[in-house]
């Protein structure tokens, strides 16, 4: 199993959620995060002072998936999260040794 973790723009959350559900994902966990990278903040003026916000609002989505589904899910996220502008974000794929469903105690892919 793999853990697919995507960092996306907040405005894309709804679209990504819809896309991964369509791709067969049954659950996901969402965190509000901030990020920095190539994308720069829009210059803003606050009380006459020009500045650039350095940390931008992002959303982190974590999805545990079976190995077989990884590419499909990654592609669903990519397509839904993409606006084509710098700052669209990243998808990280990391190994997942095991999963347990707390309610039933099931382990492995059946627990997803």
């Amino acid at each position, binding site marked *: 199993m793999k853990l697919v973790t995507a960092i996306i723009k907040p405005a894309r959350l709804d679209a990504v959620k819809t896309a991964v559900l369509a791709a067969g994902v049954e659950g996901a966990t969402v965190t509000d995060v901030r990020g920095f990278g190539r994308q720069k903040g829009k210059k803003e003026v*606050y009380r*006459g002072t020009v500045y650039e916000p350095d940390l931008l609002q992002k959303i982190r989505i974590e999805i545990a998936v079976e190995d077989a589904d990884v590419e499909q899910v990654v592609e669903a996220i990519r397509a839904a999260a993409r606006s084509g502008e710098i700052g669209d974000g990243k998808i990280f794929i990391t190994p997942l040794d095991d999963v347990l469903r707390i309610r039933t105690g099931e382990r492995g892919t059946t627990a997803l």
Partner: protein
Amino acid sequence: MTLKSALAAFGAVSFAVFAAPAFAQDAAAPPAPADDATIFVFNTMLFLIGGMVVMFMAAGFCMLEVGLVRTKNAATICVKNLALYSVAGLMFWLLGYNLLYGVEDGGFIGSFAVWGADDAATQSRDGLRAALDEGTGYASGSDWFFQMVFVATAASIVSGTLAERIRLWPFLAFVAVLTGVIYPIQASWEWGGGWLNAEWYANLFGAEFSDFAGSTLVHATGGFAALVGALALGPRTGKYSENGAVRPMPGSSLPLATLGTFILWLGWFGFNGGSQLALGTISDAIDVSTIFINTNIAAAAGVMAAMAATQMLFGKVDLTVALNGAIGGLVSITAEPLAPAIWQAAMIGAVGGIIVTLTVPVLDALKIDDVVGAIPAHLFCGAWGTLIVPFSNADASYVAQAVGLLSIGLFVTTMSAIVWFALKFAVGVRASAEDEAVGLDVAELGLEAYPEFAVR
């Protein structure tokens, strides 16, 4: 009752109550004035009701400031505002009032005495009449109350500028001196009938100094004290980097800051309207109405001017500057809310809004860290409002206004500097860098203003 006693009584009555319409046959004569007891109650009500809404300005300043500081200092600013209003009330009772109003005509300082109500003068018919003629026909306590809430205003200004880095108790020590000594002494020069109202002053500078409701006496005074405090304390850590960059530290709750501004606007009707000091006659009632209108128009113009100016200068309307614009407009009209025509009031207020917009960045360029923009709004607009009085009031003189403003500025600046530096060396006024980093709420109070909210 015999005819004679009836007539005697009548004669007295006509003197006491109907003095004005001596030519009462004439329908075009001015209306008979209200009777003296009624006037007394009206005057007292003006102070009490005006005082109540000015008292509420303490909440306005608190909300404005709590909305413009960062979350980690929000509880501390609440404590400070609550405490400064309390300290102001206690000090003005113990010291302030008599330092202010106990001054001799043309004098420089009043007397050192605890205040106590004294209504003996108005207990007799003639005494009351004389008091009304002198403009003191009201309950002495209502006057104290009204003056006290003014003092608190000056202290509130200081707390905003110095937020996020000043320690609580030293701040309150300064407030005690400001409200008990510094403010009363300078105010005695004008409102106590001191030297700024002396004949020699008028002869020398073209007119007495004129400051109707306190553009200088309250607002610039608070602003001067704040400015010196800002210099004594230095800016917040990280606010200005060596390369000249200014780091914005945005206010944590603009809705609360907006609420605070509305409360201040409301309170200003009491502030300026109550400064008419009388409401018992037709002409006083008309004057208070005029003051309400000019006060409101100046604030409205201040808002619109600040909005237009930020739009043009920065490409976007800046809400926080618009809020300062309202205050700037209000402070600007405070020196003379009665004489201006409405268009003059609008202009005076609009310039106030522009002053604020232009000077907020200037202070940053000078690395003077004024957290809520109190120095532009209260000091700079206070000065503007004071200096522009002769524009609408022919009895005032530009020179007299400037001399008065400078004198008070010099006095307040000097005294404040002495107190700030004394406190600095005696006990320290500034929170440690570490306390500043974690925030004064946790460092000084051991709690958080918004403990459950996730903060970035």
